């Protein structure tokens, strides 16, 4: 063997080894594909953007990685349209091969996503849509929620309205779709268990915002209270119309927090004094919340809202699960077990995840003061959704 040949062999060997190491390193650091399926148009646009911001804030805080893996985003606008939901979610699962799906706001769309996730086994984290069924009859080991069920804040509001506010007769009003139905039924359950009575349930087709005929009806029936479920642009419209009809002076308006969250700038004076129940509030003043709010405001030049918190916690839950399986998302059982075991250190206050994969959390009673949904008390401590119909 000539020294010259040895030299060439050594060089080749070294090059090969380096190439191998590089490939190995690459395999370990393959990016984790996160499919964000959120509303980027329509009445829920602002909500979708806040969720994405919250999620990205958490990922940024962790240096762009969760569980050691870099995150790559694939975005789809779900248009809050249930009829397009199956197509959209299948695009993410089959065409883009995402590892995790995060979405969405509209309950009807989320139901289609849960079905697709259940069939394909893809991990799904729902950062808003409160459809009871997602963690009820549809519940599955790979489906999680970082938000709430529609039942939760509405039930708590019903209890407060009957017990604390001593209201006897109430009317509910909502958009006629899953989330609306579940919210008003949750309110009815909490309200009637504590001695109140819901005398009438009004609704309009989603996303219709022509409320005049129904407001006339409310004015005529003169109930002690009105419970309304609307969100986004529809909530702005409803609260303003309610005030314009002069009803806010005579009949108190209650709602789950979505009625006034992220919409107070637009609602202005019309919203003052409205009581709502939600798992998040302004003025919590905990160190955790303050640091979250500062970081969010710095990164996006915007004040965060409940949707941002839910997006942020979706990333936290994904991070916890990934850390437990060292980035190997195919280990679904360990992934789920890790999330079920922990307390999530959320800006809203620490919460745990129930067996059906829904947050068990405090529901706050809040009052609109200026441009804030000020926390006034805890309406219900560590409230768990009954998860009716979940077998897991």
């Amino acid at each position: 063997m000539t020294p010259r040949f040895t030299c060439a062999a050594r060089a080749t060997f070294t090059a090969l080894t380096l190439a191998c190491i590089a490939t190995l390193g690459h395999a370990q650091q393959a990016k984790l594909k996160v499919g964000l399926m959120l509303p980027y148009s329509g009445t829920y646009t602002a909500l979708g953007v806040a969720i994405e911001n919250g999620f990205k804030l958490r990922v940024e805080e962790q240096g762009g990685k969760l569980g050691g893996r870099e995150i790559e985003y694939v975005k789809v606008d779900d248009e809050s349209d249930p009829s397009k939901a199956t197509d959209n979610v299948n695009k993410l699962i089959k065409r883009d091969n995402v590892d995790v799906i995060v979405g969405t706001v509209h309950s009807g769309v989320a139901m289609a996503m849960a079905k697709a996730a259940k069939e394909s086994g893809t991990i799904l984290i729902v950062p808003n849509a409160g459809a009871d069924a997602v963690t009820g009859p549809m519940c599955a080991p790979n489906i999680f929620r970082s938000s709430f069920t529609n039942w939760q804040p509405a039930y708590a509001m019903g209890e407060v309205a009957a017990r604390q506010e001593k209201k006897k007769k109430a009317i509910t009003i909502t958009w006629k779709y899953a989330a609306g139905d579940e919210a008003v039924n949750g309110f009815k359950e909490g309200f009637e268990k504590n001695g109140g009575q819901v005398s009438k349930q009004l609704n309009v087709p989603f996303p219709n915002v022509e409320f005049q005929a129904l407001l006339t009806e409310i004015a005529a029936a003169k109930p002690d209270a009105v419970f309304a479920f609307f969100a986004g642009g529809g909530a702005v419209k409803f609260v303003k119309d309610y005030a314009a009809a002069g009803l806010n002076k005579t009949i108190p308006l209650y709602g789950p927090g979505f009625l006034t969250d992220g919409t107070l700038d637009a609602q202005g004076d019309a919203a003052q004094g409205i009581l709502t129940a939600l798992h998040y509030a302004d003025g919590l003043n905990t160190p955790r919340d303050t640091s979250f709010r500062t970081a969010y405001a710095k990164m996006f030049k915007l004040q965060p809202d409940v949707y941002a918190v839910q997006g942020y916690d979706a990333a936290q839950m994904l991070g916890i699960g990934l850390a437990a399986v060292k980035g190997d998302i195919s280990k679904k059982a360990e992934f789920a077990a890790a999330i079920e075991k922990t307390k999530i250190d959320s800006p809203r206050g620490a919460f745990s995840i129930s067996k059906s994969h829904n947050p068990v959390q405090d529901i706050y009673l809040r009052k609109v003061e200026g441009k804030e949904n000020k926390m006034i008390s805890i309406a219900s401590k560590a409230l768990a959704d009954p998860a009716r119909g979940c077998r897991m």
Partner: protein
Amino acid sequence: MELGTFLVQCLNAVQYGLLLFLVASGLTLIFGIMGVINLAHGSFYMLGAYMAFALAPLFGDQFIVMLLAGVVLAAVFGYLLEWAFFSYLYQRDHLQQVLMTYGLILMFEEVRSILVGNDVHGVKAPPWLEGSFALGDLMSYPWYRLFASAACIVLAAALYFVVNRTRLGMMIRAGGSNRDMVRGLGIDIRKLYRIVFAAGVALAALAGMIAAPMSSVYPGMGASVLIVCFVVVVIGGIGSITGALVASLLVGFVDTFGKVLFAEVSGMGIYVLMAIVLIWRPEGLMGRRA
């Protein structure tokens, strides 16, 4: 239902019906006279609402001046649109018209999204129309909605007068029933079409501007109004202004009282009405028998 409530609900129904009429009358004229199925008609309503959103802060108190300015802008826009697109559509079959005008919807939505984004906006009613009109203890009704109804009534009357009592109206009606005859009489049918089209666009945009303070301004608002307007046109009879008026009011009442009395199935009401009318009179209430 108490008398006061009943009266207020009737006012709600009339107000909604009249607003629909403004949009539907343009739709039915354009279809009845030029034979063009214009799916993009709802976009003109949306255009009006967004114009109100953009113009209202500039005009402040001068709401009526704003409406007039908006109508002129919309009519010019309609005139140009007819020249650029619709004038090529008359000789085409309905499938091509539907495809083309659907394409226009997508284009308008995209332009809107680029120019003003996808948020939902509110438009303030002018200060002099704030508050409610009260009739003792019996009822009270927002001034703005009364104004909206009044404005629609004035327009409906003007439209009726133009179509039924003027030379232009005579040509329009003749154009609707026999195009070749009108052409044979030496009337410039292209010009006539262009005027009718511009008027249709202006009416829809005006409805959008009037509706803006009542029903907010949001993406896709054109599509939802378009569907209801097609229901109105089908019920009223294609090409008939009087039919459109009667059908609009019918739809207004069915929708309003359906919402209140049959909340669970309120979304279906107007379609049931359409089905009943079609069984009874397939050509629509005021349509000509084919």
